[in-house]
């Protein structure tokens, strides 16, 4: 997957541009529709996709993260506390805070957990989300405990209050677009560094790449993007509550990314949009959508490893534009990135 040939790089760039355009195109929704159901669906999709970007960034480095709800909670509660206790309502300030606080929080955390790879990283991030849940309940002074935080003032932009349905959607779109731009910039700017880490971390390090810098940076950016999604979620629900950030909600974001396709940035966009829309349109609410997600995950892992986008592009993209695949160093890393480095034994 991580072959650095030009064809992949070009299709990656196309996918990144397309993702940003698709999300920016959501700005037309408030002008063509008044339907609250569509607003609600658009909000959910954009928040889900933004959170899935975080999973996507980490997968660039061959790390599967369950910690998205942790950073969403940090971002969301940061915005809620700033609004409720300190009277900050400016959406730009709140957005910056909901990105920076999780990102800064991720740096010392990353120093601890980024030494782990493969299964151990998965486990440590899973444990993190469990700790987050417990902490949210055990620190009622900060988080409101089981009641959560309610009654935030409406956010404002240049003094204009953004309180109604349409304005909330606009804020969500703005945050999602910011998240998409950041994700695109980071994964494009550091494409080769991330690919080297994904392909073979040990080799990258011995070739002089300061792996630790890039992993820490990637982790912090992923945390910040999650934080933006958390802020959007809190802004939509008008409440910051522990149940919004449950440990198993991370499974959804992973499902969007894997089912959509983890190869390009379009994957989380398509996966998130399709799965959330499917859950809505078939009235497969809550638990029934989990049945669908579970089934699709199994199908994707067994049969269509590149997800919806990867599989579709194989048929859609003109075969001639695809140079014959150069053999990669680690041919086994096709699926979900067989951890080449983690197979080594002491």
């Amino acid at each position, binding site marked *: 997957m991580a072959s650095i040939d030009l064809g992949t790089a070009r299709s990656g760039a196309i996918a990144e541009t397309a993702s940003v355009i698709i999300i920016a195109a959501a700005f037309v929704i408030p002008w063509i529709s008044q339907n609250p159901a569509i607003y609600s669906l658009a909000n959910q999709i954009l928040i889900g996709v933004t959170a899935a970007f975080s999973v996507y960034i980490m997968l660039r480095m061959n790390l599967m993260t369950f910690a998205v709800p942790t950073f969403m909670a940090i971002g969301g509660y940061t915005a809620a506390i700033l609004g409720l206790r300190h009277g900050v309502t400016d959406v730009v300030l709140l957005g910056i805070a909901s990105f920076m606080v999780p990102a800064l929080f991720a740096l010392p955390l990353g120093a601890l957990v980024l030494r782990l790879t493969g299964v*151990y990283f*998965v486990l440590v991030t899973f444990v993190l989300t*469990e*700790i987050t849940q417990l902490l949210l309940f055990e620190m009622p002074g900060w988080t409101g405990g089981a009641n959560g935080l309610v009654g935030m003032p409406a956010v404002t932009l240049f003094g204009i209050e953004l309180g109604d349905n349409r304005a909330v959607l606009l804020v969500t779109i703005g945050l999602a677009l910011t998240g998409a731009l950041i994700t695109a910039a980071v994964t494009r700017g550091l494409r080769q560094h991330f690919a080297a880490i994904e392909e073979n971390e040990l080799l990258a390090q011995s070739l002089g790449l300061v792996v630790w810098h890039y992993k820490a940076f990637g982790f912090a950016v992923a945390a910040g993007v999650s934080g933006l999604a958390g802020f959007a979620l809190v802004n939509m629900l008008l409440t910051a509550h522990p149940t919004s950030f449950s440990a198993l909600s991370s499974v959804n974001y992973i499902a969007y990314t894997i089912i959509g396709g983890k190869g390009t940035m379009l994957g989380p966009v398509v996966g998130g949009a399709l799965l959330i829309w499917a859950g809505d349109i078939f009235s497969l609410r809550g638990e029934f959508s989990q049945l669908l997600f*579970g089934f699709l995950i*199994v199908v994707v892992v*067994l049969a269509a490893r590149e997800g919806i986008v990867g599989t579709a592009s194989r048929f859609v993209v003109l075969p001639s534009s695809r140079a014959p695949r150069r053999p990669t160093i680690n041919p086994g890393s096709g*699926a979900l990135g067989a*951890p080449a480095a983690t197979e080594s034994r002491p």
Partner: protein
Amino acid sequence: MEGIVATGLIGISLGAQYALLALGFTLIFGILGVVNFAHGGFYVLGGYLAYSAVTYLGVPYALAVIAAALGTTALGYLFERFVLDRVIDDHLATLMLTLGLYLMMSSGFLVLFGPQSPAFSFPLTGVLRGHGFYVPIENLVVLVVCLVGILLIYALIYHTDFGRALRALADDRAVATAQGLRPKLLFPTAFALATGLAGLTGALVTPILSLAPHVGDPVLATSFLIVILGGLGSIGGATVAAFIVGMVEAFSAVYLGGSKGALALFVLVLIMLVVRPSGLFGHRVRGA
């Protein structure tokens, strides 16, 4: 003092249940290198199988427990043989597959049985009184069955050819395979054994605690805790860690209240993962 004894007994009983669950989890990781996100699902499946056997077929509870254990064993075997085995060398792919299975299982329970807990209670009730403390008989029965189960697992792993074969595969799959052991046969069997243990625990414990589609979530989290604490893949470590976690949960629930005990455990495990990923007793089975 009496309170401490009573709490200690609860802790031991919890520890025995956890040990049975964690042994299965750690076997699967040690031998197959698979993190089984569906472990909690098999626990709930065991509970629902026993409940269905008792309620719809009128089978005596003891037989229903055995049926539940066999049913989860069979499902585990089939899942490993026909699904997991195709990508068995890819840690993240197997993880995603078990995660997918868990999502399907827990929503399947919800569709079939609804969100409410069914009326499913332990057939034996009563209290055994000692000097100033008392133990519910149901807990005692579960404790005895779990302890017997743990001893049987130890006997199986350390004193039979099958166990030796499994340990050889866990130790070095390539060498073990070269010496004539057949992963194609042994992997599904090992996975089935572990899921059977989860099903057995579920059938025994859910009548006492509760049976609902989502009671598998905390079971999964607890199994994670124990197995990380004891060292992924370590059998002795998982057993000791299970009793430690059982004791901490029992005492913190009685004397601290809330979820402070759980929080302390999770933080302990987080530190453990970072400082010593191999756990209390383990050696690095699969490089971290």
